[in-house]
């Protein structure tokens, strides 16, 4: 049976994986995330803990909070936790296609511009959201 701490970490792993690549996390990635957090121990302030709890309960808003923190507080504990999941997913062959470079036509650049605009919008709305949570 998992401890309450590990149950929370498992939930975080699932939510962050869905956020980062839109897929379910496999058991290897979840296990590694739990182990990594137990090993690296990322300290969270009270406010960060509240925010983490909020985004785990409201996964559709992770990008917004993450985007604002990327500009305002890139060293925040929440960013570090998502970063750990990022590194774990990149090191998993099941998700290699989400990280390895691919050949693209010139028109793909438009999609990238769209992603950039979305990132900027997320950051802007995130600033407002951070004032509330």
């Amino acid at each position: 049976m998992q401890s309450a701490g590990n149950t929370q970490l498992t939930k975080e792993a699932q939510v962050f994986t869905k956020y980062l690549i839109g897929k379910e996390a496999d058991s290897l990635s979840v296990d590694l995330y739990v182990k990594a957090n137990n090993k690296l121990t990322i300290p969270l302030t009270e406010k960060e803990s509240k925010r983490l709890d909020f985004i785990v309960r409201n996964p559709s808003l992770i990008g917004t909070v993450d985007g604002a923190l990327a500009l305002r507080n890139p060293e925040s504990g929440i960013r570090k936790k998502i970063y750990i999941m990022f590194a774990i997913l990149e090191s998993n062959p099941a998700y290699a296609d989400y990280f390895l470079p691919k050949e693209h036509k010139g028109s793909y650049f438009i999609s990238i511009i769209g992603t950039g605009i979305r990132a900027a919008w997320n950051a802007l709305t995130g600033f407002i959201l951070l004032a509330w949570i």
Partner: protein
Amino acid sequence: MQEHDFIVVGSGCTGAMAAQTLIEKGVKVLMLDAGEQNSTKTNIPDKAFADIRRSDSEQYKYWIGEDFEGINTGKTTTGAQLTPARKYVMHNADKFLPVLSETFFPMESLSYGGLGNAWGVGCCVFSDKELEAAGLPVDKMKEAYQVISDRIGISAEKDDTTPYTSGELGNIQKPAELDSNSKAIYEKYNSRKASLNAKGFYIGKPALALLTEKKEDREAVNYNELDFYTDKGSAYRPWLTVNQLKKKANFQYQPNAVVLNFSNEGESVVVTYHDTTSREKKTIKCKKLLLCASTLSTTRIVLRSLGDGTKRLPLLCDPYKYFTLLQPSMLGKPNNEPRTAFAQLSLFHDPAHNNFDVAAASLYSYRSLMLFRTIKEVPLNFRDGRKIMQYLLPAISVLGVHHPDSMTDKKYIEVVKDNSTITGDILKAEFKLTAEEQQKIAEREKQYSAAMRKLGCLTLKKIDPGFGSSIHYSGCLPFSEDEKPYHINPNGKLYGSKNVFIADGCGFRYLPAKGITLSIMAYAHLTALNAI
């Protein structure tokens, strides 16, 4: 107490070369070394990087490490570039080689093969002017460079950068193949050479201690791009030499020994070391002692041995920055050809066109370092950042820029007492640039960015890993013709001692921006010859 003929301290680049020279001359050598071994059980398969990425479920052990030591959640600083498989290079250094500083963050090693295990294998000969400024004998160093090149194996091209890299070296192998990004930059340089040269920029293929052809029992590079994760023998590492020396009857290797100090006893030298197994202090006697523990470690030993250790000594270290570059013409390209992970191109800035006061940069392909190492520097949310960086990755390169360094009173080290450490002391360091130095570096970095723009690359970000991150240190015990304490005779002998020789970079009075490794190995060879 048994008296040994020669004791060499350290198994890094200088220790290995000094010991080899002594052994070839037929004398008996004992090498004292901490000898931390690579204890990572990870055995990376002999496959290409991209194949491993797509198929190997154990790959997390190579990229992020079984203890997640490859995930750096802190700031980018010295050692951040080490992959998990290379982290052992710094193992126990904080325990036996503690440093106290707010401004200087060096990397030191107690590993078998020393800092040579983390070496990017770049080789540069110093110009005559640089040798003179450093206090090194020009003609003898030129001969010594060739001796070292023949031992370690160097691959290089004869091109515009030859005066800065392989110089007059003979018997060099063909250069390593370039990746597509660097090929495009190299071609652009060749078509815009006149204007870039007028501004002092010279670009070419680097000289590397990397075999592109078989040499004795070492194989040619396999272009698997795992050079910073595993050693297959094509890239030179000092332990290759020490392993060979161990087969000789006149060579003895003693690990688990952290040398603390020495004292003169008549014509002999008594060496005290900390045995890391028994945790006891032990002594050993020799006729001649060669200190090759690397600049900072050797200086600690000397400061403890001469006087009360409170002397403040100069410090040289090349200031270093990484530039993340984007090459828009490579966007959307598959970027999957085989390559090495070592420097693809060398870029020298020599505005006076005299091969002195030169800034030196190396261009690296980013691919094998993984996206996660750079994503946290991107000011975007991770989801969109991943998508954008995946698209940009084929077009991303990293330019590491080194600047030369000269002595000022704002850069120094001293050893102060500290009973909380195993050695009973701590190295205190201060490293600050003068306003003039800062301005010169900023101006040069601007010019590098402008030159890269001409070559089709945009600078996305400059990352400052702090002073000490170049891992090029010297100048603490400067060469001097006059007998002065804490100085070295140009033949390598330490003033104030009868039979102690310094065979690493301590004596260099000026530190060129070019990699120091080939030069310290050549100097170690010369010092060993002088010591016989």
